[in-house]
């Protein structure tokens, strides 16, 4: 079947099997490999991307279900001038990663969190990221990174080109 969607600002149409999962579509068909597959059972959040403004676990969404949607992956975050989005910038400066496997999903989930709640408390960050697991258990610095990113204001909860750099 044909699916059309806008991925990181570029619209495209592809012929896919109905059973193709969005995460496989993004990785294998579009060739965007930042989005990781961790558990494949909707538990770990490594595959989190943003579909029509909402964070979702792309291992449990069919590409067919995202037909007509706007999808943003980690690759879609940096601005045209290459400036880092405030959230990955804060993960960098606060050392919010160890092996980095959970990071793309953590970053996308954090953007969704900051969109809903631009000034979260430490506890609200922990609760807001309940769907994302870090096997290196580097949670403290992840929380610090999200709190730091929040200092950038509204840009931290927005996807797409951003001129703000934390």
């Amino acid at each position: 079947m044909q699916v059309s969607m806008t991925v990181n600002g570029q619209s495209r149409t592809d012929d896919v099997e109905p059973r193709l999962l969005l995460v496989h579509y993004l990785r294998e068909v579009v060739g965007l490999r930042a989005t990781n597959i961790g558990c494949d059972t909707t538990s770990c959040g490594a595959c989190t991307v943003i579909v029509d403004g909402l964070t979702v676990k792309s291992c449990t969404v069919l590409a067919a279900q995202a037909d007509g949607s706007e999808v943003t992956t980690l690759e879609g975050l940096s601005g045209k001038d290459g400036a880092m989005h405030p959230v990955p910038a804060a993960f960098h400066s606060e050392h919010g990663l160890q092996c980095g496997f959970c990071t793309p999903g953590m970053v996308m989930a954090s953007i969704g969190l900051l969109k809903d709640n631009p000034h979260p408390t430490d506890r609200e960050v922990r609760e807001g990221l309940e769907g994302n697991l870090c096997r290196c258990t580097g949670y403290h610095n992840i929380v610090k990174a999200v709190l730091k990113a929040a200092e950038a204001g509204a840009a931290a909860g927005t996807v797409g080109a951003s001129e703000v750099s934390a």
Partner: protein
Amino acid sequence: MIPSNFEFVRAGSVDEALSALTEHGDEAKLIAGGHSLLPLMKLRLAVPGVLIDVARLTDLSYVKVDGDEVAIGATTRHFELNTSQVAKDEVPLLAHVAGLVGDPQVRHRGTIGGTVAHADSASDVPTALLALDAKLIAQGPKGKREIAIADFYLGFFETVLEPDEMLVEVRVPKLGSSVGWGYEKFVRRENDWPIVAVAAVDGKVAMANMAGTVIRASATEQALSSGASIEDAAASAAEGTSPSSDMHADADYRQHLARLLTKRALHTAASA
């Protein structure tokens, strides 16, 4: 894990969904959020030949006051119910419980129609709906019918819904903020299904995971209505239950949790 192949039909209206259901019969399944169905399909525990996508039926996505009830469209997602001002004002128990389903990403996909129709006795929203005496509106080729939630569940993953029917709306009484309520969900990990959960509102008590379906704690309700104390009423919460034993908890422990969580939920409800 990749599901086995199927045909994907996007329904543009309830009528289109219903005629696709009629056309494909047993082969077909509706898909809303897909957050119960796709995990089953990935494990090949469900192998539908045709999926009918109802998630885009945005005319079924609403939370609104209708007379002395609150009407919730079947494709309303958990996060929408959780953040709806109407739900928070008129049925705060339901708004609260919708916010306890899984994690934010799960709540962005899962729908009220999906969780009700899925008929997993470990589900949060159906437990709250049972305590609220919700009415379910099903639509089929012959039109709409209303089903009391107490009559809806037949057993594990089994409902009275006909193969050519779908849920279009859920209705609950408008209670406002003065009616006390309590919800107690026992989990080992934050974003899990309840090991046991108890909803208490307006003298009614419903429990998750204490039988093949969500059930009411009838003995507790009777005790309450005849004037028993919360402690005494909660002591009979496990009467007539048949919880399963699994790696999370054995049946005895679930019955203990049912009594304990009922006591807590009733106290919370009474203190409002």
